[in-house]
Each structure stands twice: as structure tokens, then as C-alpha cells.
């Protein structure tokens, strides 16, 4: 049975246990950061930061929302990043779990930027030390051993969930119905096309511009130049791969 994360953002307290657990399990070093007027740190994903809790304050009619978005690879059901692959085996799409795993061979890719550009969620990054293209791998080593991904295991509130896809989708639907009582605009993001399904309490863009895929029906506002170019580039890369 393929796997899926269900991440209920209405329950996320931004304790950042997941962000730290990811670094700990992956033995990734800390970045040298500075406070930049936000509690969000590091500022962005990077070659050594694969999971990041983003913070955003939104105020409407005097009512404040502080939105937290633990960001990671969505493990797309049909991963568009496969189109960026030119070295066979640099991406493995695991049949059993559905995990999208980048391998050492990504270091041999000529156009590493293409991975990030191909991603509707702007996830892949390059590790400058190893030259690899990197992102969340669903803790495939843990999952194959019957364990939960490190981020899910550490979550105190039940915001992060992981399991068989049908169970997670059922949990997502159930949680959505509950959440809508308090948050009428709550919705599930791209549930059919990804294996990391977020439940948001307000429009996805208020959390972060790449929370939902730009192709998604709920996408508001125009495409960025980067997204536009990515779209434009995709078919060409597909032809050359």
C-alpha cells in the first residue's frame, strides 16, 4: 500500500520539533542564521534544510492569524521533477511507498536548477558540498523498517500524520469536516495529486505562495515569472530526456 502524509495545519503549534527532528535523523548541519525580524529560521529550504516551518502573520478586519506551514516535498503521485531527470536513476520513484527519492546520481546531473524549476512547490535544492540535488525522502529508511518518518514521530499535537494512503485520505476528509466548523474556509490542498496533503484553515497563499501547486484550481493571483518559465520549460525538457 502506498503511503501518504496528512498534515493538519489547524493543529500545528510551530514548535518546530519536525524541523529539528529532520536535521537530527538526516545528520544535517545547522545553518548560520541571524534573526531577520521573524521567528522563521532558516529563512528558506536549502541543501542542508529539507523541512522548514514557515511563519506568516495575516490580519484581516482586526483579526490576526499567525499561520504555520511545515514545508517539505509533497511526493507527488505523478512527480513533475521526473521530467528534469537526465541521468537515469538520479530519481527513484518507489513503487511500494510512492516516495520520490533523489539519489547520489543527482550530483551528475548537468542542469540541477531544473529540478527546482520543475517543481510546482519549489522544493528541490542543491547541496553545495556534495553537489547533489536534495529534498525530503519520506524517511524511506525508517518507513521501510516499519517506523514513522522522524518529523511525524516527534509531533506533539497530531498535526503530522503518516500511513497508508486510503487511511490518510479518510482522516483528511474527517478532519476537514471538523475543521470547517471553526474555519469555514478550511480545505485540503491538492489531495489527489500529492502524498503530503495539507489541511489549511484559510486560503493557501496566506501561508506561503507555494503551499498549493500553481496549476491547482484554488490558485489565486497570477503566476510568477519563475513559475511561468518553469511551465514553459517543462515540455522541452521532457522531449530531451
Amino acid at each position, binding site marked *: 500500500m502506498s503511503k501518504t502524509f496528512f498534515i493538519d495545519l489547524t493543529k500545528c*503549534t510551530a514548535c518546530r520539533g519536525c524541523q529539528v527532528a529532520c536535521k537530527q535523523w538526516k545528520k544535517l548541519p*545547522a*545553518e548560520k542564521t541571524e534573526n531577520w525580524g521573524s521567528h522563521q529560521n532558516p529563512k528558506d529550504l536549502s541543501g542542508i534544510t529539507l523541512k522548514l516551518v514557515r511563519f506568516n502573520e495575516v490580519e484581516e478586519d482586526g483579526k490576526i492569524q499567525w*499561520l504555520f506551514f511545515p514545508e517539505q516535498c509533497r511526493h507527488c503521485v505523478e512527480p513533475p521533477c521526473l521530467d528534469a531527470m537526465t541521468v537515469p536513476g538520479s530519481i527513484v520513484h518507489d513503487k511500494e511507498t510512492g516516495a520520490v527519492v533523489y539519489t547520489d546520481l543527482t550530483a551528475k546531473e548537468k542542469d540541477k536548477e531544473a529540478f527546482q524549476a520543475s517543481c510546482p512547490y519549489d522544493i528541490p535544492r542543491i547541496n553545495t558540498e556534495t553537489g547533489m540535488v536534495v529534498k525530503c525522502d519520506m524517511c524511506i529508511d525508517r518507513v521501510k523498517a516499519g517506523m514513522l518518518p522522524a518529523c511525524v514521530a516527534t509531533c506533539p499535537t*497530531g498535526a503530522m500524520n503518516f500511513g497508508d494512503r486510503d487511511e490518510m485520505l479518510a482522516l483528511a476528509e474527517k478532519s476537514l469536516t471538523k475543521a470547517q466548523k471553526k474555519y469555514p474556509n478550511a480545505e485540503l490542498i491538492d489531495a489527489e495529486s500529492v502524498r503530503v496533503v495539507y489541511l489549511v484553515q484559510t486560503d493557501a497563499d496566506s501561508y506561503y505562495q507555494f503551499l498549493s501547486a500553481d496549476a491547482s484550481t484554488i490558485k489565486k493571483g497570477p503566476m510568477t515569472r519563475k513559475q511561468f518559465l518553469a511551465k514553459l520549460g517543462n515540455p522541452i525538457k521532457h522531449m530531451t530526456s
Partner: protein
Amino acid sequence: MTNHWIDLKNSDTILIMGSNAAENHPISFKWVTKAQENGATVIHVDPRFTRTSTKADMHATLRSGTDISILGGMIKYILDNDLIFKEYVVNYTNASFIVGDDYTFEDGIFAGFDSKNKTYDKSKWAFAMDAKGNPKKDPTLKDPKCVYQMLKKHYERYTLDKIVEISGMKKADLIKLYETYAATGKSDKAGTIMYAMGWTQHTVGVQNIRSMAMIQLLLGNIGIAGGGVNALRGESNVQGSTDHCLLYHILPGYLKTPKATQQSLAAYDKVYTPISNDPKSANWWANYPKYSASLLKAMWRDQDPKDSFNYLPKLDSGSAADYSWLTLFDKMDEGQFKGLFAWGMNPACSGANSNKTRSAMTKLDWMVNVNIFPNETGWFWEGPGMDPSKIKTEVFFLPCAVSIEKEGSITNSGRWMQWRYKGPDAPNGLKPDGDLIYELMHEIQELYKKEGGAYPDPITKLSWDGIATNGVFDPHKTAKLINGFFTKDTEVKGKKFKKGDQIPSFAYLQTDGSTCSGNWLYCNSYTAKGNMAARRSLAQTEEQANIGLFPNFSWCWPVNRRILYNRASVDLKGNPWNPKKAVIKWTGPKTKWQGDIPDGGWAPGDKYAFIMRKHGFGQLFGPGRADGPFPEHYEPLECPVKSHPFSSTLHNPVALAFNDEAKAVCNPKFPLVGTTYRVAEHWQTGLMTRNCDWLTEAEPQIFVEMSTELAELRGIKNGEKVTVSSVRGTLWAVAIVTKRLKPFTIQGTVVHQVGLPWHFGWTWPKDGGDSANILTPSAGDPNTGIPETKAFMVNVSKA
């Protein structure tokens, strides 16, 4: 906590006030979230909109230091609208007690005030007694001198408009808060409070908590599932350290430190053993002499407790002003201390008024600093503004094992004593604290034996090997001693015990030296059945499962009772107020109580519910505190107002303060209210977490949070470095300009508040900044001496 973490899920209304639980107690939100899933309402009252507020159903703001105005107003609201749980209030609280004629309250001052010494004569707050020596009562609650009527009178001044004017809370929020919380006064509803340092670190800290305890009594919320008064403890074992009383005024098990005037064990016991003439009052502290004798026997095995009592150090007074933390460093700064053990703590950053604390350390001859990392305390001599060539203090640094490298127990917030096995060995032969303390005292004993001294007996006769096996500290032996054992063959309650048998529970302790127990509260934790704290069984009855009790997992004081005061969760016949969430239930004379361990096994109605109180009743009127029997609003010693609407007494008249230290009251140089707090990513002074790169990556530097309005006023941009200053010191911080803080309107004037975390220190990281305690005042609560670090005055300017 009167209750425990899991029990939060049983609540219908969770008030989080004086705490930022989601950030500082993240696991608590597992249970808060479960309560919400069950339909509970979560209210967060805090000056800031925090990560906790994001999950609350309601968030209301108040200016730091005005909690009693809000809570006093809630008491008035409950009484005015007759929302009390009347059967509970009449039967289980002292609402019906008649207050004596000496009691007065005039313009913010209670009877018995001594303005010269800044103390109260508490005898003026005594109850009126009947011929039998019991408090006079009026169960109709109509007597104008009864506590209920006195309470009404005391808080009639706390009107909504006055509260709004001084606290800055919006009136609509205030009413909604009162309506929502007071609705838990129904027999089938539970309300709980989660509080932490946001309530305690004030010159009215104890009275903040008392206000809420009174509300909980009025609404019948104490003793029940999903109720109680829940202090969220900040260290994994701070409950344990409190129970074992690492404080000046108490000995293990909350026994009192003797005073110099108490020249014999009998005289000492007499002072602290309450006497009730009412046979229905269990008056549990009547057992005091058994506990004191057993403690003395645990320390000096070969001595009669009557003799070894003389070995205990004695205090001249019990006053926080004479002995507590702030005074200790004040005297140290005057050169009155030669040496200091700074063990597992970092006072150079953790204590209020860091510059004073650090200056005090320069007056020492020596300091022993035991820690797992180099820190601002052990290295104070090379800190900012210090010239090592002019400092005489000799510092000895002892690195030690960390928690996972040693065996032992911790006691969590919910009073669970949890045994932990040892993980890896400590590197480089580093030793656990227990070993260090054992070896140190052993050496001191040897020196006294060899060289003598002014009064060597207390040290040379100490049964120090009671905690060691073959000269090595032994955590199991220590835990067994804390529980206690029989010192000779004895018969108690018809049961025969051999010398050396573990004592089954504190009900078996004796006054004659035939029992020893290092802490009576923990008697029952390590018995003939073994180490109860090491149990990990999830077995439970249906009733226990219903409210999330796990009586076979770890062990909980007292006698494994998971919810304190649970006799108050049932009516006088033993039927639970709320059968759907029963804590205990009387099932008849044969089968007795079911559910949790009851507060005493007596049949229902045989004894009053609050067995730890002399008279057996929860105290709405509390004549034991240093600053009055009813909580009263006073401004913090540094505040932005010249007056408040409740009396002309601006500050707590008996607050702990040092007269030579200036305070900013309506001082235009320091117009902003300041407060300190913590973040999820760092712990205490940050010593452990600042040395953990992933956490420093997430929160790398000291920041000051401020509203967009204040930032605009000062021309400060988000993310730029600014200077924050108070009467006591100055530091830099990164400005976080946020909509999550809003200016208050206080007495018609706009007042801004800012806040900083106190997790940083100059040693590491190098660009992390210094402790926010550089700003905070040496001012404290008169009962506990806890410093007022949650409300003080500062200024912020562009760096």
C-alpha cells in the same frame, strides 16, 4: 499540578493565562488539542498573541501585571450573577466561616499592617471561634461577617469599567471571558487553568495564583477531572526539587525549616502541628511529628530524633526578605559571602538584575560551578565590563554527566515520579551529580573528623553512607531511603515489620525513631513491592480509562493519588458531581471507593473534603499569606501609572525590594512596559540549547517584540538591531515588529509593551546577545521572594 497532563483532555473550558503553553510546554498541547476535539473551549489571556493564541478559541490581551484586576472582576461576576456551585461552596469551602472582628480592609491595606517593617500581623485575620474552638459558620452565607459576604464586599470595587481602564483589556473580551469561564460552575462542567511564570514572577505572584484557586473553589472545579489549579513546571524535575525542598524555608516534604527560637523537637513540632477540635476534620498535618522525626532519622540514623533536631540549621526568621534569592545576591554584593556553589544553574543569566548578580560574584573568594557546558556564571570574570586582573574570585569548574548518562528519578508537573535507566556512559569519566555530592560531603566529614571544628557533630554523625554502596553513590539506595524503612522490629496497625523493611506508606510513620523516611510525601514510592516509579504498565479499570488515569504507570505522590482533593469531586454521599467523568465513587461499606486513590479512605461525609487544611475546607479566605487573606490589585513596583482605580495603595505594601535601588514609576525615560519570556526552542538561560546547533539555528539571537505602532513611533524597522534599556542596564536586541502586539489604552493614555526572551548569554553564540535579565528589577513577592521579571519599565531606541 493538582491534576496531570493527560487530565487536560477532560476539561470543558481551558483557561491559559500567565503561560504560553504551546511554546513552552509543547506536549501539553497534545491534551489541549484532544480537549478541543471533544468540544472544549480554549481561552488564552496574554499581552501577546503567541503560538498558544493561534490555537485558542479566544484570545484577550492585558497589560502585564494586571491579572488580579481581571480575576478579582471574575470573582465579582460569579458572585453578582450567583454562578457559584453552591452545594460545593457551602460544604467544601470556608465561605460560611465567620471572620473575626479584628479583620479590616481599608484603602488597599489589610488589618495589622506594620509600615515600618513592611509586614502584617496575621493574627488580625483570624476567624471567630465557637466555644469548642472551631470556626463559627453560617451555612446560609447571609451573615455579613461570613467569608462569602466579605468576599462580595472586597470585590465590589472591581467593576468592568475600572478593570478595562487599568488592564487595557477590551470590555467585550472581558465579558466574554467571564461568561465563558463562569459557565463551568455547573456540576457537569469542568474548567481548568494552565499557568506558569507569567503569574508567579510578580510582586503579587502568590496572590495571582490564589485568585484563580478561589475562582476554582467557587465554581466547584477543584478535585474533579478536567479541573484543578495546574502549574506548568519549567524543568523536567522542578516538581521533584520542590518536593525535596531545595529552598531556604522548607525541608523535604514541605516541613518547615526550624527557627532559632525553637530549641527542641517538641517545641518545633508544636508550632507546626495544627490542632482541630472538629472530629470531622481529618487535619492531616496533625501527623507532622511523625514526618519530622522520620526525616531526622533518615539523616542521622544512630541518633534519637530529639537529639539530632539540634543538628538542623535554624533560621532567625521565615521571611523571604531575609533569605530568598534576591537577598542572597544582595548580601553577596555587600561582601557577606565567601563562597558559592552554582550547581546545575546559571545565575549570571537566570536571576533578575544580572549586572548586580554578576557584580556580586566578584566579591566572592571562591565559586564551584558544576555544569555540562561552560557558562556565564563560571566565566563571569571575563564577561562584559569585567577586568579579570581585578577579580579575586577563584572559580572551580566541574563538568558533570548529563541526564541520560545516569540513573534516577524525575518528578514531572503532574507529580509523577518516573524512574529513568541509564543510557550511555558519560565521556572522560565525568560523574553524575549524586557522585559529586556524595564524594564532596564524604571528604568534608573526613576533614571534620580529623581537624574538628566549631560544631562537628551534625557533620560527623550524618549517616552519609545511607545514599551509597561501597563508597559509591547509589540511586536505588537513595530512593529507598527517601521512601523510608523501619529502623527496628516494629508493629504498626497490627502488622509486624522487621528492621530494614521498607515502609508501605506514610500512614505507618512513627514519632519514636522506629521509622526513617527522607520525604514522607514519597513514602509508598519504593516498597516491598519494589520501585513503584519504574512501573510502566498501562493496566487500568474502566472507570480509570474513562478519564485517562494510569495508576500502574510510574508513581504519583501522595500514595499514587492522581487527582488531588478528589474528595471534593463527589457529594456528601460519595456520588460524583459529574458521573460521566467520575474520579472516585463510593460503592458501599464493603467495596468502598472506586476510581482514583481517594483523599483518605473514610466513608463519604465522615470527613471534610480538604484534608490538608486544619479545618478541612478550601480557603476562599486565606489568612496564612504574607500579603493579605484576599488577593488585591497592586501595580508592579515599576509601572506606567501613578494610581489605580481600586485604592490609593499603588504597590503591594509588603513587597520584597531594596530601598537603595531606584524604580521607574511613570518615568518618561522608561515609558514602555517590558516583560521577559521563553521560546519553544530554548530552555531556561539557554545554556543547554544554545549549545545545540539546530536550536540556535531556529532562534539564533535575542529579539525584542514590539507593535507596528511603537516601531513607527521610534522609527524602527523590522529586523534591525535596537537598544533596550531600563534603570539597571542596557542591551541590544533584534526588533521583531509585529501585529501580534498592540498598544494598550490605560487610563485614557496609550501604553506600549515590549517583550524579550531571557535565553541568551554572552558566552555562546558570540553574536547571540546577552540575558534579558540585565533589564529586570530586584523586586520580589513577599511570600516566596520570586522576582518580578514579568512586568517592569524599559525604553527602546534605534541602536
